[in-house]
């Protein structure tokens, strides 16, 4: 029995990760096997009773004994079925829990970068629906493989004893089943992949529609969206039906094989019965067993189609978990070329100030695009430096930040943090050392307090009050119905973008770290808050390193250095250098 299955590397890793669930898998399978095997004596007794009672072949007491034995077998099978269900559920729970926690952990370690936000809907689908769909595969389809081998084999042995010609027929017809399974399985696999993709699109689509409903409504497109929802649903139905047509066709083929097989056995048995070569008991037993012979094979077919989604999902999960975020990074170049943008003053700076962050000839290209966003970028950040990052919209500033926090990995070049290349080993330590304020900070659906504490859950309450006061959160929180306990975010009080920004700033202040990476921190803040925020930065201890993506030159003026991102290159400008000052003026427009 060949099961058409190709294990990818990711799949193999998952199987390895799930080693702990083996005992449950064994228990599920074993009790299934026992239940299936006990079916044989049960049928034997039935046949014996049906044929024995009318012909008085068996004595009355013998009949009674057989009846009781039969009752006992039935009970044992009931108990086995109980164990199958019970162990199967425990198996499924363990697998799902394990997968979900590995995936969440992976997600956090990778840190979905700003630019990946577009795929939030898909990720939700993976983390919930995909993992749920693994259950039927693990729990039913996999044990069924074992059942489909053991039980027909056992039945075959018995039939060879009762009527070897029938045994031969069963054996021959059974060979057709894998053949059909492989044939139709190939077609089904392609269709399922399509259906699976359609299902993911459906989920992602709903996420988008619900997220963007206000926009759609403002453009009077929300009612027209109803038709789009209907259309997407219809497309999903068609894709699903396409798959099912093939899946059911293979069940149909199996059923035909088993029907024809049973009919051949029946006719042969009938003829041999007529000619007196076979006893009635054996004839009946053979026919009843023929049905049971095909049953596990048939359910293997239907289980496999039913769990095809789960198989694809498992593969997908494996592929995700198998990619480590830092895998292809840090190709450290040995030829330490002199940084072309490093001026002499840089070098002196490097002498007295330890570089906390250094990038060497880093190139980054988004997958499936040709043009790199950042080309041969080299830069260095010394401890305590205040640096502005400027550049026109779409120049790659946020991409640079995503690289620096390890959410994206460069194709060539390396990032050194505290002198060591950034790699999987030190990424979490590095992240613990940075505070990052993105363009769209997320407000969790939790209380204000929990939202602020998100950056440091162990923070003391009075510390939280202090940063809330500093960040200007306090002034609006005391107006909220339950103060700091008010639930905000999705499904709670909605906040203005300025209030969201203040909470994000409070979060950032709460976390002690040596470097701040701020992506336009003063966007959405009113003038007074902006002014206050600048004061915060200016009054920072000299040990605090700050990188700010800034659109307004007023932010840039008091900085030690400016990184200009343009056409994929990053140029370093020294603020104190007169010549560079003029270059900087080109950005002054409109500030």
């Amino acid at each position: 029995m060949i099961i058409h299955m190709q294990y990818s590397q990711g799949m193999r890793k998952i199987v390895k990760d799930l080693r702990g669930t083996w005992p449950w898998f064994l228990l599920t399978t074993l009790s299934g096997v026992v239940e299936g095997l006990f079916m044989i004596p049960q049928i034997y007794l039935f046949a014996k009773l049906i044929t024995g009672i009318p012909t008085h072949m068996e004595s009355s007491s013998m009949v009674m004994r057989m009846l009781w034995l039969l009752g006992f077998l039935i009970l044992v099978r009931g108990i086995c079925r109980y164990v199958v269900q019970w162990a199967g559920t425990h198996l499924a729970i363990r697998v799902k829990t394990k997968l979900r926690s590995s995936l969440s952990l992976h997600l956090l370690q990778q840190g979905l970068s700003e630019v990946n936000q577009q795929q939030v809907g898909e990720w939700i689908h993976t983390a919930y629906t995909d993992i749920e769909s693994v259950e039927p595969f693990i729990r039913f389809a996999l044990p069924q493989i074992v059942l489909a081998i053991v039980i027909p084999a056992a039945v075959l042995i018995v039939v060879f004893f009762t009527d070897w010609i029938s045994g031969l027929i069963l054996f021959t017809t059974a060979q057709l089943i894998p053949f059909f399974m492989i044939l139709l399985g190939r077609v089904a696999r392609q269709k399922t992949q399509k259906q699976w993709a359609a299902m993911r699109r459906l989920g992602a689509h709903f996420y988008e529609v619900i997220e963007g409903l206000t926009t759609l409504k403002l453009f009077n497109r929300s009612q027209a969206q109803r038709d789009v929802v209907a259309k997407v649903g219809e497309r999903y139905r068609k894709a699903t039906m396409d798959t099912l047509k093939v899946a059911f066709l293979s069940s149909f083929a199996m059923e035909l094989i088993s029907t024809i097989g049973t009919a051949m056995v029946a006719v042969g048995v009938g003829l041999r019965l007529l000619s007196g070569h076979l006893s009635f008991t054996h004839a009946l037993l053979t026919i009843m067993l023929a049905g049971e012979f095909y049953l596990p094979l048939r359910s293997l077919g239907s289980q496999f189609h039913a769990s095809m989604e789960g198989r694809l999902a498992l593969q997908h999960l494996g592929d995700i978990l198998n990619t480590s975020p830092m895998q292809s990074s840090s190709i450290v170049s040995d030829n330490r070329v002199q940084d072309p943008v490093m001026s002499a003053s840089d070098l002196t700076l490097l002498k007295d100030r330890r570089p906390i962050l250094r990038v060497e000839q880093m190139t980054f290209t988004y997958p499936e695009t040709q043009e790199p966003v950042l080309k041969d970028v080299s830069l260095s950040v010394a401890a305590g430096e205040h640096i502005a990052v400027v550049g026109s919209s779409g120049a790659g500033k946020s991409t640079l930040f995503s690289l620096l926090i390890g959410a994206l990995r460069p194709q060539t070049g390396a990032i050194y943090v505290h002198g060591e290349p950034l790699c999987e080993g030190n990424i979490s330590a590095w992240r613990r050392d940075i505070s990052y304020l993105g363009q769209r900070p997320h407000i969790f659906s939790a209380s204000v307090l929990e939202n602020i504490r998100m950056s440091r859950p162990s923070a003391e309450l009075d510390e939280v009050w202090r940063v809330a006061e500093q960040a200007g959160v306090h002034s609006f929180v005391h107006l909220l119905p339950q103060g700091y306990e008010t639930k905000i975010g999705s499904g709670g009080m909605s906040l203005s973008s300025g209030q969201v920004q203040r909470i994000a700033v409070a979060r950032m202040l709460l976390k002690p770290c040596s470097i701040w990476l701020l992506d336009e921190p003063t966007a959405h803040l009113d003038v007074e808050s902006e002014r206050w925020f600048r004061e915060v930065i200016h009054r920072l201890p000299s040990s605090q390193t700050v990188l700010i993506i800034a659109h307004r030159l007023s932010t840039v003026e008091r900085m030690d250095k400016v990184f200009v991102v343009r056409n994929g290159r990053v140029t370093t400008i020294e603020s104190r250098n007169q010549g560079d000052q003029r270059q900087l003026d080109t950005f002054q427009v409109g500030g």
Partner: protein
Amino acid sequence: METGLHWLNRQWGRMVLSVGLGFSSIASNIGLMAIAGYLIAKAATHPSTILLLWVPIVSVRFFGLSRAAFRYAERLISHDVTFRILSHIRTRFYSMLEPRWPSAFAKWSIGDFLDRITNDIEVLQNVFLRVLTPPIVAFMAAGLSFAIISVTGSFLLGCVLLVGLTMVGVILPMVGHWSTRRIDQSYTDGRSRMYQKICDLVSGTQDLSMADDGGRQFLGALDILQERLNTYQRQLVLRQAVIEACTVVIVSGTAWAMLACAMPRVEHHLLGSVMLTVVALTSMASFEAVLPIPMTFVALGENVASVRRLQEIKNWPVQTPDPSCDHDRRRLPDHWHVRMNDVSFSYTSGNPILSGITLDLYPGKHMAIVGHNGGGKSTIIHLLTRLWDTQEGTVTIDDIDLRSLAGEVVRSGFVVISAHTPIFNASIADNLRIAKPTADLEELQKVAEVAQLSSWIDPLPEGFDTVIGEFGHVPSGGQRQRIAIARAVLANAPILLFDEPLEALDAQTALEIKGNLEAISRHKSVIWITHHLKSIGTMDEIIVLSQGSIIERGIHQELIHQSGPYQKMWDYEMDMF
């Protein structure tokens, strides 16, 4: 359940067909087994000629083939019908959600809605595939096998079979449903809570991954939810497993009981070996129809909970009901002269957001609203566009109260550009065409020019057909914002509401786009919400909003000499830049 039935709408024909085919398939199976039994038993009696067996042999073949064919057709049709109904329910759910947006957002999170529209509807698949038709089929099949056994065996044997069938098909399902209904409910709630947590995790991954514990605490909370869900599932399986085991025992036990009951009749030669075989095999086949029913009803509580969750949103009142089909109110206003008279407003939470707001906006008037964060500036936009209705005071267009105009009519006059406008995973052209589905390429190019998008789009190999989010075409924050601006310009509405639209752009681009926007909005009504006073010097009216009230209004030249809050803000800004 009864409320869920209207979802069956136009699918009755297909449902009946699927019941018919389902019964035919089961009947074929019963026929197959009965006649196979007859064939064997008859052969065992060594009849004088094999010709006597011809009819049974042909029937066995016929039933065998028809069983497979009927089952294939039945499964196709029942699945097709189910997916049609589910698609219909999804659309209905969306239609219920749409008019309640955004007020319903205060109660349910995005994750919650998403959970309902995907997972609850997915659960309902079970109702249509397994709860509705199989019991009907099972009932018919039970009748057939009872008839066969009563005729071939005896009435008593028929009754024994009927008892077995009733136990598996009626009593076990009832016990199953009754014993699990509470857990099913908790399970659904737990699932929903975990799903929402996952949504929060994915949306907030970036912030969490930067936390000093790397988000471990959040993961811990997720694990607790998962563990709670696991507990419910474990409690469920104890009952499920008992029901399953009982099913196995009752099915075989019925055959056992029938044999035991047949014994005396056989001994008195009232029942021959041929008929006994027929009876035994028929009874085995007749259980096929009832076998799946108990497990279906164990999950029924979950289905009921899901139906309830889908209906729940109906109880949330529509905050901005459209006036009942008064055709006059569907007419577009002529002048789009908008007034807010003494408007006070609070969201569902009850905190007063606006009080006593009066403003007047007519074509050609450009107005700015400035003020502190959280002053209620964006709420004014919600009220003007009828996403919410005022509680006190009136908002009128051409002296018609907004509440007597359909929401769509009101919104056709406005276009809003705010700081974070979602961009959809569709082509750039489709994203723009949300504003105007009929727009041709020339129009798209024109608005792209206004929003300074051309230099980004033109070099793309697919141009406007580039799909956002695919193949690395991930727009930056600034690019997204410019798409949103181009989209708004395309709508070409008479009233433009700008809610800090240029925040995400660098100074140079922002300045250029602002110039373009001013050029196209000269004769339109404009409200510009901003923090940067420098950009609003030429506005016809400036309103300073603080904690929901207008504390100052006038033109720039007056206000900077009034030594009020505006002057203070102006000085701050001058000081900074």
